[in-house]
């Protein structure tokens, strides 16, 4: 890693040149909410003036720019009773600008799942390799809990990371590409004062978290609470709408569909991001549904995020961005569900159960 300091104006000029020369995505205001609050999303940007540098948070994560909501896996052509398959891993280079530490950590988790498992995805690899990531730090929103998940700082997975130290940005440069781009702009070596400012900034960020979700020992709690009534309670609220998984930066489940062309001469095999909360997530051929109940489906979403599955080394995959909580129309959010679960367990450990009645 190489460190540099750049003035805010110069950084803007650098970003402008970068996004003008490349297909780029960055935070943009797309709407104004009911209470006058701006709504942001990662959208295409072609100049620095389109980017909301001081955005709060995007409703949806940047996941779909590396794992599209719908993607063709292969094309089949039928001819003379036979067929050919065509597979393409094209991924034009893109720039993702303005990702937060939690977002970059989320991509690192996706890398783990999509690239380091027994069946690495060439589709994911092609996009990931061609993605240039510029991160930016920020003060947490009142409901962010990435600190609880220990995902509030990031040391890899980006090309360049900018920390706000007042008049300038402290840059962490993590790739030769980023280093070369930056050569044409005026940067300085960090002084001792800059280092101090960076440490102050990190301290401030760390102290600004208002939401804490207690996750220590959670995997065990989850195992013990497998049959807890809280799943039914929260499940009864769930609309099975999948919004949480769509906006989540680490939900990666997908469904594969075959689309035969209307002329029957070809067909396209497509991957579509899916969600374990959707009613037919665990439905198999013949119609049997292994998880017909809302509560069971919601439970597995929490298991995957806070206990982990074997595929990702039993690691928690939630980064604590709370996008799912903000988007859920049924007011289901990790903080309350997990608190409920702990309360249930703690009250059960402290209560004295009466001895069985003598008959």
């Amino acid at each position, binding site marked *: 890693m190489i460190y540099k300091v750049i003035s805010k104006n110069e950084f803007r000029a650098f970003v402008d040149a970068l996004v003008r020369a490349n297909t780029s995505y960055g935070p943009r205001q*797309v*709407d104004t*909410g*009911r209470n006058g609050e701006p*709504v942001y*999303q990662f*959208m295409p940007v072609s100049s620095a003036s389109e980017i909301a540098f001081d955005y709060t948070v995007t*409703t*949806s994560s940047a996941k*779909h720019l590396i794992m599209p*909501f*719908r993607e063709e896996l292969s094309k089949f052509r*039928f001819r003379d*009773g036979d*067929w050919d398959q065509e597979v393409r891993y094209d991924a034009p280079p893109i720039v993702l600008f303005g990702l937060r530490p939690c977002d970059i950590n989320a991509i690192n988790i996706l890398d783990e799942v999509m690239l380091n498992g027994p069946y690495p995805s060439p589709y994911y690899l092609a996009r990931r390799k061609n993605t240039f990531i510029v991160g930016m730090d920020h003060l947490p929103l009142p409901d962010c809990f990435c600190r609880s998940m220990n995902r509030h700082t990031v040391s890899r997975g980006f090309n360049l990371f900018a920390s706000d130290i007042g008049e300038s940005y402290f840059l962490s440069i993590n790739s030769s590409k980023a280093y070369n781009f930056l050569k044409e702009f005026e940067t300085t070596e960090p002084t001792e004062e800059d280092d101090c400012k960076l440490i102050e900034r990190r301290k401030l960020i760390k102290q600004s978290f208002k939401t804490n979700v207690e996750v220590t020992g959670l995997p065990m709690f989850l195992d013990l609470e497998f049959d807890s009534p809280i799943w039914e309670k929260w499940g*009864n*609220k*769930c*609309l*099975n*709408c*999948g*919004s949480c998984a*769509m*906006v989540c930066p680490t939900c990666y489940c997908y469904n594969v569909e*075959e*689309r*035969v*062309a*209307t*002329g*029957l001469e070809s067909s396209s095999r497509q991957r579509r*991001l899916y*969600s374990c909360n*959707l*009613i*037919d997530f665990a439905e198999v051929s013949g119609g049997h549904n292994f998880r*017909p109940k*809302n509560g069971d489906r919601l439970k597995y979403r929490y298991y995957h995020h806070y206990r982990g599955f074997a595929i990702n080394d039993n690691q928690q995959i939630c980064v604590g961005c709370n996008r799912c909580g903000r*988007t859920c*129309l*049924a*007011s289901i959010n990790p903080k309350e569900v997990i608190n409920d679960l702990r309360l249930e367990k703690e009250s059960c450990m402290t209560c004295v159960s009466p001895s069985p009645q003598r008959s």
Partner: protein
Amino acid sequence: MNHLGFDTEKLKIGSFDFTCCEGCQLQLANHESTLPEFLALLDIRNFREISSERLDDSDIALVEGSITRSDEVERLKAIRAQAKVLVAYGTCACFGGMNAQKNKFPKEECIRTVYGDKQIDTMPEAHKISDFVQVDYSIPGCPVSKEEVERIVVSIATRSPIALPKYPVCVECKQRLNTCLFDLGEVCLGPISRAGCDAVCPSGKTVCLGCRGPADDINYASFTELVRDKGLSTEEMREKLAFYNGFTEYLNHEG
């Protein structure tokens, strides 16, 4: 036609309209880029919008519109008797559709308002076709989505399973990165309506009115709670639920 080594015969198809705007039939002639391929799959027996043939032996009968007169019931039953597969085509056929607006008012008042003093033969309520005949497949939508129709026809031609999405519109809406209309202070039926339209209405900043009917196993109780929690009008919600008549069992159940 030969597909993957087996022959597919052209599907004999007929389209029949009842009380409706014929907009769904018109959709069939849309999507020009694939129209020749689409028509090549079909042997059109009865189709006002795209052909002058009038034959009554169809494998597949697409039935469009709701049933509002007693003579329509007879005609519908005759179509059922001849068709191998009967498809409820469009929101009116699937649920009664917009025509069912009249179900809320006395019959005489409706006739007077629309036709004045003219004598009109009409039933007190507009019905979905499954009130009278067995329906094999439903393709809801006001209007239907041509892509979905093509997909289903291709599935019939290739003998593949036919299915509509079971999940609600929100999935597609989120995939289009729309701002949720609830966050803008509106009541949207997306969380309980069947997906498959690519969330076309919310993408145009118009709430979903559930023209595709309820998704599978919807959580109606949680939905009404959501409307109340957001401080939005349940009256408005009920009006929207009644718009296409797809949610009657939930509205009636609530009393």
